[in-house]
């Protein structure tokens, strides 16, 4: 590398580390909390606050008692100081004067938060073609386009509402994909989750618009434990988007969500995430711990579940959106871009479990590491004895920007069927100096060149996102990158 370019790069790396988190504001709204700490009383408090049916409280308590016997997971490559689970609030909700019946009655201060985030909720300004459920700390503050969706029979509402209005569906499906015993954080979530989104698409219905939840942590030292449940009945289709941000704080915040998807015969669920939790500052102070369990069950024949994620935020990400391919001919997909910078750690990937015949899965993972960050792909492809003619293809690439970061690939392939075809490929490389020079020579700055190359590198994944999100994600990548080249 020429001296000049080298110097240029150093500057850019410097810039990169200084680039700021633009969603870090804190809103001073009146909030109510559950008592700090975690015990049976806090769980009763939450359940009571939500006016839940008896089965919910029982389920939560079972999870809590199971959780008490569990140990923090220590097997992934991420490192973090032990979390004091008694030093956190498990319920925080904005105080609302009276129960708002519609979005017009929601506290204007709260609506302002979403406006500031570029997601106006009120009728005049709201995004067309996307129905949004806005979740602030522990509760949903409002859902747009609810009535329009109801017309075709789609239920899209906060989880807390679904528990009241559709208890039979909640009881049937909650925990059916991620049981309360599943893992440390999922079990904790089962005990204390306060809200989230609930979606039910009836037989034969294609959702006329994108459904979306926007998560925002606002309160200090509060954990966020939301739970999302999406059920696509036979021959239905839904595309669902999830976005998230948090204020800039020195303390770490815990986000331990659970997402469960169920796709029945011939149904398709497309789940997209643009994750932009506060990643901590350039010294690695603060930031969100994002410990999330996401799993989809392709229950029926010919069903399909597709996960797409763009991960740019969080101090630590620990997340493996997975598919259980139970129905014959079912399809699971995982497309991921994970960008880490500064002291961020990401340990992410997927699990594809092939059970049914002729099941197919596809994994495309693109890691980008900069600064002093560590970025790991961890994935499992499991082909059970029953899964005749199962096929999997995985491509896991890592791009390194700078010489102080790490990129790791840990794929597990466990094959028990001789007719299965499983292929895994991975590469690790840096941005080619030749390409950067070529672009420089055509008058493109190194910073723009890198953004261009990274976007090209991530394209296969970004292409999977719905249009509005793809643009957003592309911007986000460029911001997280700002000028980094090694």
């Amino acid at each position, binding site marked *: 590398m020429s001296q000049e370019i080298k110097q240029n790069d150093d500057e850019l790396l410097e810039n990169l580390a200084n680039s700021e988190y633009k969603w870090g504001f804190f809103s001073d709204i009146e909030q109510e909390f559950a008592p700090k700490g975690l015990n049976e009383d806090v769980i009763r408090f939450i359940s009571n606050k939500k006016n839940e049916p008896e089965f919910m409280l029982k389920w939560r308590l079972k999870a809590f008692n199971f959780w008490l016997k569990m140990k923090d997971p220590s*097997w992934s490559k991420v490192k973090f100081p032990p979390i004091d689970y008694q030093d956190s609030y498990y319920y925080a909700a904005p105080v609302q004067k009276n129960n708002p019946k519609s979005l017009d009655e929601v506290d204007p201060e709260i609506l302002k938060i979403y406006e500031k985030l570029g997601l106006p909720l009120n009728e005049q300004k709201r995004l067309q073609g996307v129905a949004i459920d806005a979740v602030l700390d522990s509760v949903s503050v409002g859902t747009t386009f609810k009535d329009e969706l109801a017309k075709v029979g789609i239920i899209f509402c906060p989880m807390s509402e679904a528990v009241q209005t559709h208890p039979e569906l909640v009881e049937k499906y909650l925990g059916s994909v991620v049981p309360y015993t599943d893992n440390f954080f999922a079990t904790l979530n089962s005990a204390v989750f306060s809200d989230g989104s609930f979606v039910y698409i009836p037989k034969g219905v294609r959702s006329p618009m994108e459904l979306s939840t926007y998560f925002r942590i606002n309160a200090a030292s509060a954990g966020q434990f939301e739970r999302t449940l999406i059920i696509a009945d036979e021959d239905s289709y839904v595309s669902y988007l999830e976005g998230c941000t948090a204020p800039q704080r020195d303390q770490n915040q815990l986000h331990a969500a659970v997402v469960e998807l169920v796709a029945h015969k011939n149904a398709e669920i497309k789940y997209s995430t643009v994750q932009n939790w506060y990643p901590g500052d350039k010294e690695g102070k603060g930031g969100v711990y994002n410990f999330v369990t996401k799993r989809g069950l392709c229950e029926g024949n010919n069903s399909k579940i597709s996960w797409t994620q763009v991960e740019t935020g969080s101090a630590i990400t620990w997340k493996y959106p997975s598919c259980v391919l139970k129905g014959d001919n079912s399809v699971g997909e995982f497309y991921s871009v994970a960008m880490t910078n500064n002291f961020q750690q990401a340990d992410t990937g997927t699990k594809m479990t092939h059970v049914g015949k002729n099941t197919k899965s596809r994994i495309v993972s693109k890691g980008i590491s900069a600064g002093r960050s560590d970025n790991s792909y961890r994935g499992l492809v499991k082909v059970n004895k029953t899964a005749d003619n199962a096929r999997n293809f995985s491509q896991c690439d890592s791009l390194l920007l700078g010489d102080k970061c790490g990129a790791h690939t840990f794929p597990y392939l466990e094959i*028990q069927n001789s007719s299965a075809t499983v292929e895994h490929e991975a590469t*690790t490389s840096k941005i080619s100096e030749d390409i950067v020079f070529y672009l420089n020579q055509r008058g493109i700055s190194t910073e723009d060149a890198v953004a261009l190359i990274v976007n090209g590198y991530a394209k296969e994944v970004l292409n999977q996102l719905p249009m509005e999100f793809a643009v957003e994600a592309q911007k986000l990548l460029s911001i997280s990158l700002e000028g980094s080249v090694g």
Partner: protein
Amino acid sequence: MEKVNFVDKVRQLIPNEESNIPQFRLDAYNFLKDNSLPTLKNESWKYINLSFLNKYDFKFDQQFSDSIDCDCNKYAINGLDSYHIYVLNGKIDFNKSDMPQELEVEEIDNQRAFDSLDEHRQTYFTKLNDAFYKNCISLKVSKNIVIDKPIHIIYISDANTNDCLINTRRIFRFENNTEVTIIESFVTIGDSKSFYNGTADIFVGENSTIHHIKLQQDSNSDVIVDFIQANQQKYSNYVNLTFTTAGNFVRNNLNSKLNDENIEAHFLGVFIADNNNLVDNRTLVDHLKPNCFSNENYRGILFDRSTGIFNGKILVHPDAQKTNAYQSNKNILASNNATINTKPELEIYADDVKCSHGATSGALDKNSLFYLRARGIDAIKAESLLMNAFVAEVIDELKNKQLKNYLHNITRHKLNEDLKFIDNEDLINIDEL
């Protein structure tokens, strides 16, 4: 006689309070007192249940005589012009062996393993080896020497009267500018169970080229656990082929440290397993310095109820810029009751590198099978041809033609046996065309 479980048996054999015991042995005794056999929960023993060891009543090294009455010559490789070293129950039989003059051979009582504190050495079986091996077999080739023919070392365990557990330690030192081919075979005589537990330290000096072929093809051998640590100096080239076609339980660890610049390491592997057998290959290419190259190519074919495990790691340290590291593991599941668990890992801390790995598992390619059948070749013969070709791609990375021929032949016999296919076709040796 009542059988004692493996761990307790090991503990009973640990000598009490003797003087003059070197520290590394004492450390090993303590380790074995404090630890049990690794379980499925241990990441590097995932998928493996070792409780079968409790079924056997092993006698350990100390309890064996140094000589075995056997016709050793039959283990030499037909058609391969080589030297031979026969190691009986862990001790060299100098009378039977024929060695090159330039080779310095020694047997050492208490030889500490190099890097005995290395984290990869802190395992139950390496400690078992530390604690109980009798003689360390030390081979040395001084600088600027090229040994003209391969050296074939044949380790013979005696299971004539008892289940035997032999701990063998080897240290191979190849000084600067040497060129040597070492072939190691592991065989058992007698009908009782055998457990071969080995460790090897291999030093590859500057600008040296070492070929190291490990043959595990003796159907009479039951358990093999072998740990190899290579240490390479600059401009050296270490080529290892681990070739496994037999054994109920085979676990190979192969690590190489690339300690300087411009080093090459080639890890090649073939494993063909059948019955209930298990073959586990675990490799680590440790890139410590810039401008090195490593290439790994492992292929497995699994029949019956067998299990194959491959775990290959490429580790690139922050200093190791301009590393080129490649790894490939391909497998054929030839039975619906067989299992393959493969985990190719990349752990990379340097940015200016080119690293890639690939792993595949599946049945034979349908289009290739049809193509062969459309030329009049029976389905079973077509399968045999394709499987042989699959393995040949690894074997053909070697240079020694006689050795390649030999390996092609044992592959062919093994595969035909597993495919229950009688093949009378003589092959054209394309090397001679």
